[in-house]
């Protein structure tokens, strides 16, 4: 059965509406960030970029950015390494507790993050660890490492296990196989997992809320200002955070595209 033309058009329109629905609030935040007034009201009377100037100059903002960035980078690096091996255990190797392991990984993703953050706070407290941004890294990992693992696992499922068996059959040992076969084949999955890990950590606040101690990440600060005293910097920093994420994603797409073009060019020479 092929869907009728009118149904198709309706579905496309619906898809566009959903995208608009998802991004409408960001449009409001965007407008708010360039409003000159201290107390926002639409329609905006005078536009100004002064809040961006203030944000750039503020030492609080640069501290927030540094903390968020440090957490995200550390979470990304650890997640990718853990996910590489985790995905192999998840998808590739047949071992005794594989299905149990698969289900264990899913649980943190299903878990309310606020509760998880609080549980970690109590755990750190009973261990005598004072929470800082480093403990937030641990908190983020609980949620992000499983997601990264799933992303790499999808890639691991898509290649034939016989490739590794063939390499072993031809004399390669486990380390060589991981380096020469598995790693290159999983690379696209690892890159997306790293991208996801960074962005999810960058935007996360429920996990950071109770686990950063005296430090504060950008989303945490925004939340605090939203529920207590409003600051005109909230929309501005929100936009900066979003733009930062999107620039990273675009860069990733650009790199992927360049790699493909480069490879196609090499092939075309044959």
């Amino acid at each position: 059965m092929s869907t009728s033309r009118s149904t198709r058009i309706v579905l496309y329109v619906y898809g566009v509406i959903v995208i608009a629905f998802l991004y409408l609030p960001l449009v409001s935040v965007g407008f708010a960030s360039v409003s000159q007034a201290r107390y926002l009201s639409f329609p905006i009377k005078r536009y100004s970029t002064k809040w961006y100037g203030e944000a750039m100059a503020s030492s609080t903002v640069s501290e927030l950015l540094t903390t968020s960035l440090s957490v995200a980078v550390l979470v990304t690096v650890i997640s990718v390494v853990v996910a590489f091996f985790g995905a192999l255990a998840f998808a590739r190797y047949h071992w005794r507790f594989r299905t149990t392991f698969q289900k264990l990984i899913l649980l943190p993703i299903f878990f309310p993050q606020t509760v998880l953050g609080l549980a970690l706070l109590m755990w750190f407290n009973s261990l005598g660890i004072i929470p800082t941004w480093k403990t937030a890294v641990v908190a983020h990992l609980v949620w992000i490492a499983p997601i990264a693992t799933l992303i790499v696992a999808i890639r691991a499922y898509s290649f034939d296990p016989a490739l590794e068996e063939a390499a072993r059959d031809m004399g390669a040992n486990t380390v060589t196989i991981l380096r020469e076969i598995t790693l290159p084949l999983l690379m696209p999955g690892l890159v997306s997992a790293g991208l996801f890990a960074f962005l999810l950590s960058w935007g996360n606040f429920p996990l950071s809320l109770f686990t950063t101690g005296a430090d504060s990440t950008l989303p945490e600060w925004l939340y605090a200002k939203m529920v207590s005293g409003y600051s005109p910097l909230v929309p501005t920093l929100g936009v900066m955070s979003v733009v930062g994420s999107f620039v990273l994603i675009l860069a990733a797409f650009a790199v992927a595209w360049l790699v493909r073009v480069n490879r196609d060019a090499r092939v075309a020479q044959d």
Partner: protein
Amino acid sequence: MNRLDGKLGFLSALPLALVLLLSFLAPLVVVALFSIMPPKVFSLANMPDFSAYSLFFSQGYYKSLLWSLGMALCATVILVVLCWPLAYAMAKVFGRFSLILTVAVVMSLFVSENIRLFGWVLTLMKGGLIEGHLRSWTGVGFEGPLYSVPIIIFGLVYVYLPFMLFPLAQGISMVPDDTRQAAYDLGASRWQVLWQIEVPLAAPGIVVGSLLSFVLAAGALAESKILGGQAVIAIADDVETAFTFGQNWPLGSALSMILIVIIGGLALFGVSKVDLDAIMGRKR
């Protein structure tokens, strides 16, 4: 399963298993232990007295739980209905547009949810994007819809849409085209095909999507805080208050435990029902 695979599987699972053991399972044990401590203690070196659980009923915390579960249920039902046509189109109708839609939805996930919810406040508030412009053009304004139960459900639908959409699309893509065609060929109507063929075959996706949305919505905090004002109190809000303002860790832990048992039960039920290998596309 041969010996080498067994060994490699165990070794490669080790890092992630350790992360989860030390920072997921161990904290849960601590929560469970704290929940049976006497009120307002900050150490586990006390005689357990289970008093915190009795507060759940006597202090009316069960109302928050019911509100949270009720709103989560509403949001989940709305999400299934809203996402089904789109998921269907992504799996079967859209070609390249599927990819664009996927990228757009995933990218929205990377924006901190409180920024997005705050954006809705700016959009819907009195003097916000919609009301403000309407008033300046027509001169007629209206009270913003903020700070009510429906707007909290709206927020839940908005935030958890991707968690319903993607599993649903995955589930629908697992329905072979020829079963649908065969059903039409045998004389089934559009509705019969939907209920007799597509829904049963896409069931794993529906189950995963619904569970994920429900569980996350039931434990949500930001929607009721940012969009709902204090119209109703979500259970996660009570948990947070008990820890911060109330300085009563055992109470917070007991409330958490109740939430964890409900959510954990559902999550375990859900993950035990689905074959991950099949959903994620195992070869061989």
